[in-house]
């Protein structure tokens, strides 16, 4: 059988991409486990309270870090590597080095999470893993990123298109963010307010400049690839890209509204998050104008269904995010569980959904094994339901929390806590659903990646028969 160029590329990527997807899946399960414990502790403070390991503060951080660096990092490597190689029509280089760097990345996160659970966290948002693991993480990231860029540099067509911009930009933005934050927080620690501004800036930008562009780039790739039609109003994409690049790092500081920082910082943040309407509008116009031309095909293709769910969720909740950045609204919602809504919307409702779609698109092409449609469908419906329930609970609960907390006459324990508690119960329920759905995803992915022992035995016996 003659292989076409795409098959050759996929073959060269098989080992590395499978490794990254497999480890991403394990981290996803770990994060789901931590998320459940953390949410259960909010409804019942005595849950696992006799184990110091499961203190809320530790579990919550372990969840965020396992999710962003474990699941996020590994799946970003897999998706970026595959899409960049496919679009460049070039084979992967340095497979052993990729595996080596990938193992270091995962080992470092493992040690980092153990450090967090042991109480050795740093106080900086999304940099909570102990100081010692960061050089290893940075080094392995550097190796993987360099190898991906090498693939991109050897591309056949010199012009680049939207998915490449977003994926490669996020690849470069993360080390840039990290170096700025690491320099200002650890190497030459800034004093006073600057430190907390920097810490918060990094924590939010990891999501805005690292996870978000990867998800957007994947959507820019997968929608035209599956639908077979070019992106509608593609000329806007370049504008959207530069808007995100220039506005997003400014917009995140609106979270400091009312904080002990110079007034211009949250003011600029608010203005820039209003301006973020540009890139949000551009991306959603691009995606949805293309997708809704052939909505039947979108519905019938499960990977695309995941992706469009992600882009719709991106559009709707980014606009909600803009509203919540207005000072008048932020005053009420600032110190409520609305913050959970923002985080979970970004990482579950948007990033993860698109990555699920990408994995379902990539995996059959790489391994040649299709995942059962019923499993994918179950995963989609439970994920969609879980995410919606989770986000609605955090949104409505957050508003309730914020409004009640503004009234000093109310008794905190009897009125505020008791009215927010039902929403925590709902999120606990949602996290259980999400954990089940992710378990199904991971089992299926592993089944596709790891050859089944029976097949191996069959093959062995065939070889033996052939030999005799």
């Amino acid at each position, binding site marked *: 059988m003659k292989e076409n160029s*795409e098959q050759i590329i996929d073959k060269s990527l098989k080992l590395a991409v499978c490794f990254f997807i497999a480890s991403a899946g394990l981290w996803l399960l770990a994060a789901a486990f931590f998320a459940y414990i953390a949410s259960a502790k909010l409804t019942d403070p005595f849950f696992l309270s006799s184990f110091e390991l499961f203190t809320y503060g530790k579990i919550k951080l372990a969840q965020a870090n396992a999710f962003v660096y474990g699941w996020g990092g590994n799946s970003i490597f897999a998706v970026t590597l595959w899409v960049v190689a496919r*679009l460049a029509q070039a084979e992967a280089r340095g497979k052993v080095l990729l595996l080596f760097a990938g193992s270091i990345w995962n080992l470092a996160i493992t040690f980092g999470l153990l450090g967090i659970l042991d109480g050795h966290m740093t106080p900086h948002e999304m940099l909570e893993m102990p100081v010692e693991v960061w050089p290893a993480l940075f080094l392995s990231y550097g190796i993987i990123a360099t190898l991906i860029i090498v693939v991109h540099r050897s591309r056949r067509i010199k012009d680049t298109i939207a998915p490449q911009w977003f994926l490669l930009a996020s690849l470069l933005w993360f080390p840039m963010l990290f170096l700025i934050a690491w320099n200002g927080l650890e190497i030459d620690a800034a004093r006073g307010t600057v430190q907390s501004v920097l810490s918060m800036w990094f924590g939010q930008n990891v999501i805005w400049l690292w996870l978000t562009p990867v998800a957007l780039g994947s959507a820019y790739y997968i929608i035209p690839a599956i639908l077979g039609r070019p992106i509608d109003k593609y000329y806007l994409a370049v504008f959207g890209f530069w808007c995100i690049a220039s506005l997003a790092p400014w917009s995140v500081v609106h979270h400091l509204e009312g904080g002990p920082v110079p007034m211009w910082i949250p003011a600029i943040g608010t203005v820039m998050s209003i301006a973020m309407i540009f890139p949000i509008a551009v991306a959603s116009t691009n995606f949805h104008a293309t997708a809704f031309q052939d909505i039947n095909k979108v519905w019938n293709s499960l990977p695309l269904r995941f992706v469009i769910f992600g882009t719709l969720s991106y559009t709707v909740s980014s606009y909600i995010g803009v509203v919540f950045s207005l000072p008048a609204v932020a005053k009420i919602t600032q110190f409520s569980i609305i913050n959970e809504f923002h985080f979970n919307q970004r990482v579950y409702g948007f990033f993860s959904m698109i990555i699920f779609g990408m994995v379902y698109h990539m995996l059959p092409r790489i391994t040649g094994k299709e995942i059962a449609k019923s499993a994918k469908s179950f995963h989609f419906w439970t994920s969609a339901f879980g995410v919606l329930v989770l986000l609605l609970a955090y949104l409505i609960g957050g508003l309730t929390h914020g409004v009640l907390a503004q009234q000093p006459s109310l008794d905190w324990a009897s009125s505020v806590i008791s009215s927010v508690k039902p929403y925590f119960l709902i999120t606990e329920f949602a996290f259980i659903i999400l954990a089940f759905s992710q378990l199904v995803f991971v089992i299926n992915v592993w089944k596709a990646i790891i050859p089944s022992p029976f097949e191996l035995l069959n093959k062995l016996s065939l070889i033996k028969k052939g030999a005799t």
Partner: protein
Amino acid sequence: MTEDKDKFHGNENMTDEELVEIHSKLNVEKHPPTKGFLSAPLIFVFVFGCLIFVCSIQLAHSTNQFQLHPPTDVVDLTDEEKEALRIERKFESGKKIFALRCASCHQANGLGIPGQYPPLDGSKWATSDPALVSYIILNGLKGEIVVKGEVYGTSAAVNMAAVPITDREIANVTTYVRQAWGNNSSEISTDEVVQFRQDTSAKQEQWTGDELVEMFPAVFTN
């Protein structure tokens, strides 16, 4: 078409190579040819123009001119209000100094301890001539004195030379003592205390009660 039947390679409507080519071409051509007028760019320009307008208004109103510190509330006070505010601050400062340096003997309520430490509340020594109380703080006091008909000073003495105290602190604490509790005497200004310090600069020893009674006959005659 279900994807189960899809072959995974080359059966899509668009291969990756085509995808790159088509979009690169779109990048150059800007948009597929349409007849007439493109409404979408106009709508975008209009919406984005409005957004930039809103953003600049917001920026102009809320950045506090990029100052480091938040704006202080400018309140116009009348002269009387300013004076009242000044007295109040002086009184508060004096109260702190008193609590720190005087209250251990004279007690927070200014009543002292009978037989040991003389009271300040209602005492002529504190409330009469501004110079008298300032002199005592500046140079100290030893020997026996009579306060409100009781004899004090056999066991204790005021010795302020041990702990330096500024003129401003003396002015604040004497003003506090003269106006706290039941006392209702005049304020002592820092300038006055500066003058008192100069007047007594030649004096090395602590005062004795008799010296002071001689120096301020008007206080003790009636």
